[in-house]
């Protein structure tokens, strides 16, 4: 079976300073994967590189066996909520409609079917009542739901979510979790970056433990063990970041 996401010897650097080292991972389709690790472990970087938003300094990523450029229609990305200006003059529905832009191509215009899909996506996250609201008039949790709805409107097979649980209310968290399990039932592959270890263990099929390199990847039960967590969160490999600093220093 072709993995939904596969990376091979993937190294990513920010201005020559490596932040992810030689990542090898193959995620089969239909899994709900939690990506966990300490701050600065490269979790968001992994997602962004998978989406082709950051260049890899070595190695490659493939989505269903194809490079990202040919597989964009099959992956949806949910960025962190702080990455945008919420005063932007758009409504919740406008934002979700952006999820359809990818399939419109260069000159396409939005059609009734696109509006239909956007409305449905909003419904799935329980936000249909807020469709016409300007986005700064939404609470943090509601904003996050709009972002999720935008990804849903893309109707893809793979979803990459960067910290969807940060700063949301309990109701939204529950709604997101329900959405995740629904996506899994429909055979979608989901990668969720999360800080909540306990929730990740309970709700995800697989866990990817990351700290500048892959510490472990496997079924949640198998890899959620004290030694592996210690290895992920313990500062044992400061040598890696020292070396990254040295490279950056020399190349400056």
């Amino acid at each position, binding site marked *: 079976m072709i993995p939904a996401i596969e990376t091979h*010897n993937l190294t990513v650097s920010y201005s020559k300073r490596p932040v992810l080292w*030689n990542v*090898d991972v193959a995620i089969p389709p239909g899994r709900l994967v939690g990506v966990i690790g300490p701050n600065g472990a490269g979790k968001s970087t992994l997602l962004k590189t998978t989406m082709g938003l950051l260049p890899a300094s070595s190695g490659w990523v493939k989505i269903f066996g194809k490079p990202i450029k040919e597989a964009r229609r099959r992956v949806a990305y949910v960025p962190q909520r702080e990455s945008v200006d919420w005063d932007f003059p758009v409504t919740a529905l406008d934002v979700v409609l952006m999820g359809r832009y990818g399939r419109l191509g260069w000159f396409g215009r939005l059609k009734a079917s696109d509006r239909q899909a956007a409305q449905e996506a909003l419904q799935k996250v329980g936000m249909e009542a807020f469709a016409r609201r300007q986005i*700064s008039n939404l609470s943090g949790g509601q904003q996050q739901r709009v972002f999720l709805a935008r990804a849903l409107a893309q109707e893809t097979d793979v979803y990459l979510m960067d910290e969807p649980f940060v700063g949301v209310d309990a109701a939204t968290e529950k709604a997101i979790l329900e959405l995740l399990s629904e996506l899994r039932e429909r055979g979608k592959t989901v990668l969720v970056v999360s800080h909540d270890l306990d929730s990740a263990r309970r709700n995800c099929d697989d866990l990817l433990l990351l700290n500048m*390199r*892959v*510490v472990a990847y496997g079924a949640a039960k198998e890899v959620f063990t004290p030694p592996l967590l210690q290895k992920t969160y313990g500062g044992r490999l400061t*040598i890696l970041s*020292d*070396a990254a600093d040295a490279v950056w220093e020399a190349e400056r």
Partner: protein
Amino acid sequence: MNDLIPPFDWTRVFVEQWTGAANIDASFWVVATGALAAISCGIVGCFLILRGMAMIGDAVSHAVLPGIAGAFLLSESRASFPMFLGAAVVGVLTAALIEAVYKSSRIKADASMGVVFPALFAFGVLLISLMADKVDLDQECVLYGEIAFVPFEARAEWFGWTAGPESTMVLLCAALVVIGGVVLFYRPLLIASFDPQLATSMGVSAAVVHYGLMTVLSLTVVCSFEAVGAILVIAMLIAPGATAYLFTDRLPTMLWISAGHGLFCAFAGWHLSVWLDCSTAGAMAVVGAGLFFAALVVSPRHGLLSRLTRRVQLARRVAEENALGTLYRSQEEGGDSIASASLAELLGVSAGGAKRVFRRLRRKGWAVQDGAGTLALTKAGMGRAAQLLRAHRLWETLLSNEVGLPDDHLHSAAHLLEHYIDEETLKALSDTLGNPSVDPHGRPIPKVD
């Protein structure tokens, strides 16, 4: 078209300007006025740059225009007290207004600036064009000042003593105020620019420093108005400090360099304008920006040239080290010593490149070539190569044991890293791994004493 750039005549451009009392007088006062404007603006500008407020300088220098024009209209004279007061008030108000607009509405900071100062500037220009026939102040003066007319101004009378032209004397006072202010309030300024929160905790009010700086900025801009106009003054505010910032990390040095920059701009700008027969203030601005871009190229620490040199040196070192490693490995395996022709192939570079690398190794006493053309490492070379191989193999061990990389990934990663590791990291690495003696491929890790 052909007469755009007149022939450069050393005598006319330099010598004549400094011979004869009248010429010396004119040159001196123009250069002095320009230098005083550039120095006082430059010093204020250093703080603007450090506080990330360069564009506020732009905004305030545009926005004082209605103040200047209004005061002009009221007092019907230049360089009067109401004029300074009017302009300084407008300058501070501009800074406050920009802040108020973006804090009290959804307009962002940059757009707020882009709305407020053009509006004020437009109002000033309109005032000036409406009263064009009444007062001797025209649009050209707004844009680039009238520094060339400074020597012909009435001389200020100070306690019966005849001093320089009025504009120059006003600028002299401004420069003294600015320098005195910096000397007196050096510490609070430094702290408030560097770390506003620390300043607040130490009882230095960030707001007081901010608005104090804005007041001095407006005053300086107003005093320089006569000499360089409202727009070219930005060159004097930003270019000296930014140029100095490329050379130093210390504030006092930065202030000195920016003062020197101002002086040079005034001098070179004046002669450039004599040569080309063009606006003097414009020429000073061109020199100022030109110096900045020159510094960008040649600055020893942050310049493009030094950066390029460092890159080249790094690339050379990496190439040398790769050659050392290759020679070491071949000797370690006990195989034949390498013929100079095959070195290029092993390193994956051109024959010429390999030859150059080898020549550098030989010059350093690390490798020799015998009569038959085979290459070998010297004892010193062996020592250096052993260090490298040690780093390489320790990294491979780490990547294999701790990162869990498959064997076929190890070499490329370690190959990159071996060049960057210092002694200390190497020791820490070895300790972390429990001082192993063989790498994951089963090859020995050389010991270095």
